[in-house]
């Protein structure tokens, strides 16, 4: 079961430094990063437990801070790992933008800490929302270009 530890109240320079290197947050100022931290919750998931399961509707974006996560998809032969998430990477972007149920599950490969950002928090800050959605669009665009090249 996911455990929400806290909503960070104390600004953490190390955390701000770490977030500034996350692709999703490229272009955000220090002030905006501080806002992001204040808008997130910290979630700890034990090894082999899931941040979300296939079919869940979450509207939440995760930023992995420590530990490891594997994204798994159900196939007729069982669960297949399609992506490994390392600290500093984000996951659940697809469901975050289209609000559809997850088609995969995100399983912690070791005890993991992530920040979770709920979509509704973005409605109150247009400048941060603009940059985050632009970055998500850019990340998906690059993913689509790679898929186009492979096919």
């Amino acid at each position: 079961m996911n455990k929400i530890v806290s909503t960070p109240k104390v600004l953490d320079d190390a955390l701000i430094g770490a977030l500034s290197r996350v692709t999703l947050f490229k272009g955000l100022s220090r002030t905006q990063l501080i806002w992001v931290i204040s808008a997130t919750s910290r979630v700890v998931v034990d090894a082999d437990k899931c941040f979300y399961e296939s079919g869940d509707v979450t509207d939440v974006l995760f930023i992995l801070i420590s530990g490891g996560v594997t994204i798994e998809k159900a196939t007729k032969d069982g669960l297949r790992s399609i992506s490994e998430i390392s600290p500093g990477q984000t996951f659940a972007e697809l469901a975050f933008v289209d609000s559809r149920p997850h088609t995969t599950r995100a399983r912690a490969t070791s005890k993991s800490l992530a920040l979770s950002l709920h979509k509704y928090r973005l409605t109150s800050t247009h400048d941060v929302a603009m940059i985050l959605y632009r970055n998500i669009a850019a990340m998906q665009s690059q993913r689509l270009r790679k898929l186009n090249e492979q096919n």
Partner: protein
Amino acid sequence: MTDPRSYTTDDSLVAVLGKVSLFADLSRPQLAFLLGATSRVVIPEGKLFFDEDDSADSLYVFIAGEAVVEKRTAADWLLLAKLNPGQIVGEMAIVDRLPRSARVRAVKNCLAIRLDIAGLESSHEIAAIVYRNIARTITERVRAYTDLDDKRRE
């Protein structure tokens, strides 16, 4: 095909923009603001909206005329799609800032609305909605690819 000259008023263009999926959820005042940040471009028959490998800082809403999307092959140009009124071209390049992956050519005289990044981002509220819609559109294509990949594996 609708005559490009029939789109002469802001009201008619706002109505067109309101039907574009990329501008879904924008209010009429926001659509009117967005229209003010655009420029109307007429592309004569045989000319290009943009060429493959061009640097990208704008997207186009195709309004009227006849145009095709083409990609260079070893021998010639491969037809990828024909544009329909209200269709967007160039949205991927404005978010990832990579060169155009295809060219768009006017087969007949065309009218389009050109929206550049600076114009779009002149309102952060509108830009947030449009970028979210671009992300949704691209995500749908990514999901379609991954679904296809899953079917191939089965």
